[in-house]
């Protein structure tokens, strides 16, 4: 059974269709990259998988570990093990990182049938995971994302990924805005989290990231559809030739 199976997914917002029949299967233990031009629907797909309500699913299905999740609330999906690292992480002034992590981690642990973490264990985890992804642990004493630099926000997403240990991690342009050292640190962190019982969907514009996080499959999304899939060399080809080439191909195929 696949970890994630998306069939003919059509999604619209305010009557305009954004996803027009997405098919994608990710097996557990695998890392899939999704590339594609601006506005092609990559973030929409990510948010629909995480349960954002403003998007209307018109057709199709999303199975997570064989179970339809489209009726689930965002928190139910998180409890089942889906995690979205946001392209634009939200600043939450006045919400302390510590408090937020405590509630979040314990909600997810409870769903997995684990004991809630006490204050000392939580602190220990925070220290370990912050180190794993190269997050300055002082940031965990502040309000969530408030005043974080662009790169700090992205690292914070991967830090939360590490804290929550999901089964499926969706990373939406986590590499954008990272300097080269940060990119390597984040990629190292992610690579340590790549295990047989976890799958990754990595959305990116840059082949560079895929040198560090080497994907099993690369997909190209254009106009709300996956128009081409291939191995990691597809990313290199795209970097060379741009999207026009795939677009033309897709047009011929259609």
């Amino acid at each position, binding site marked *: 059974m696949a970890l994630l199976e998306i069939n003919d997914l059509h999604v619209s917002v305010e009557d305009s269709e954004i996803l027009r029949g997405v098919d994608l299967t990710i097996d557990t233990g695998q890392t899939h990259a999704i590339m594609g031009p601006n506005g092609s629907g990559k973030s929409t797909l990510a948010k629909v998988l995480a*349960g954002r309500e403003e998007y209307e699913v018109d057709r199709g299905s999303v199975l997570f570990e064989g179970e339809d999740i489209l009726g689930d609330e965002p928190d139910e999906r*998180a409890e089942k093990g889906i995690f979205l690292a946001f392209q634009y992480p939200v600043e939450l002034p006045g919400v302390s990182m510590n408090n937020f992590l405590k509630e*979040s981690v314990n909600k997810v642990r409870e769903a997995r049938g684990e004991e809630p973490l006490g204050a000392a264990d939580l602190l220990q985890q925070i220290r370990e995971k912050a180190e794993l992804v190269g997050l300055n642990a002082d940031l965990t004493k502040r309000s969530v994302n408030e005043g974080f630099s662009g790169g700090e926000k992205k690292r914070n997403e991967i830090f939360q990924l590490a804290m929550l240990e999901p089964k499926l991690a969706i990373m939406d342009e986590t590499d954008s805005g990272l300097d080269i050292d940060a990119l390597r640190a984040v990629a190292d962190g992610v690579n340590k989290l790549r295990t047989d019982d976890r799958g990754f969907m990595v959305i990116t514009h840059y082949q560079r990231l895929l040198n560090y996080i080497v994907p099993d499959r690369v997909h190209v999304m254009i106009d709300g559809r996956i128009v081409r899939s291939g191995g990691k060399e597809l990313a290199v080809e795209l970097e060379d030739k741009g999207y026009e080439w795939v677009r033309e191909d897709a047009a011929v195929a259609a």
Partner: protein
Amino acid sequence: MSTSSTDLSAEERLVQAFEANEGQALNGAASLGEIRREAISRFSTLGLPGPKSEAYKYSPVTRALRHEYEVNVDAEPEHGVTESDVDDLLLPGLDAHIITLVNGRFDADLSRIGDLPDGVIARDFHGASAEHADLISEHFAQYADHRERVFVALNTAFTKDGAFVYVPNNTILEKPIHVLNVTSTDRDLFIQPRNLVIAEQSASATVIETDHTLTDSQTFTNAVTEIAVGANAHVDHYKVQAEGENASQVNNISAYQTRDSLFSTTTFTLSGRLVRNNLHITADAENCESRLYGLFMGRDEMHVDNSTLVDHTMPNCMSDELYKGILDDDATGVFNGKVFVHRDAQNIKAYQSNDNILLTNDADIYTKPELEIYADDVQCSHGATSGQLDEEAMFYLRSRGLSRSQAQSMLLVAFAGDIVDHVEVEPLREVLSETVTERFAETSEAATRWKA
């Protein structure tokens, strides 16, 4: 022909009550009697706010006063409030001078004033008006405008008792004054406490007023607190309104600042039926700093109205104002903030904002932040936002496993925290933070210390 009281308007009933009680209402200097008579005549002339009143457009105080409240002049010896009731209302861990007013009258047995620094006075207004007639006549009715403000006029006319605080030159009052306003009565009372706080040159004081109701009868409180902040003095003032659901109030606070002074006031409206706050700060000398903050949390049918005025008459001053509202159920909130900068008041920095969150479609907010500026060299800003909780923020939290109500509670506590964090008195800040957290906790039924 005798007229039954039901045929009388609220104004007429109040004027009658004044006439009936005038003789014994206030001890002290004869000059106060004059002010009181002037005040009742201004009250008659001004009248209660009519349907066309701009200042009370959204707040039906006059309608509320159609209810035939009994005007309370005498103390109620049988009010039934006990020491242990007082214990329950005090702030854990706060060492304060406690002045307890029951139904607007000072209660010596329930007050715990304790030792005061040399020269400091903290006591009942009624007694002070006889014993410190000089201070009273110098300050009483000087800052709250009984000529133009109808509720101030009404309160002034009926002046009898309240809290009196005096901190002389160069004196730092370390412990806060806690004025505990307790309403406990079988009758539907109209209650009018009159408070006066004087901080002389280079004095410093913290005054906390908290309002509580122990009984279910309908009450209406029309309070006036005058605060004189002397040169280079520092007064921190807090008002916590935690009255019962049958209790309404108009709370008039007038602060007058002289040069180099700092005055800050924070108002928390946690419960009550109809709450109208009239906050009026006059920065009448150079180099004054004025801070005014407020948090109102309406639910059920509650109506909360904050009307503030910062009057900058002189140059080189700064004022900072932030009010936040969270409105649930059918509650209504009103914010009407005005900053007035006079022509000669150059180099003023004035900031004002009001942010509100509406939790239901039935909750309403009317907000009007206003700047009226006649000077040309000023730095002012004002703004207001009202809306639901941010969907993107909710989604972010929920995508991390938090339920809708957990996420909502977390965001509301953070929103309110902005105001709670301004509280410098730690035990007060803690109780408020607890109250806010429990109010918005998932199981919002949790009882809070100051839950009405």
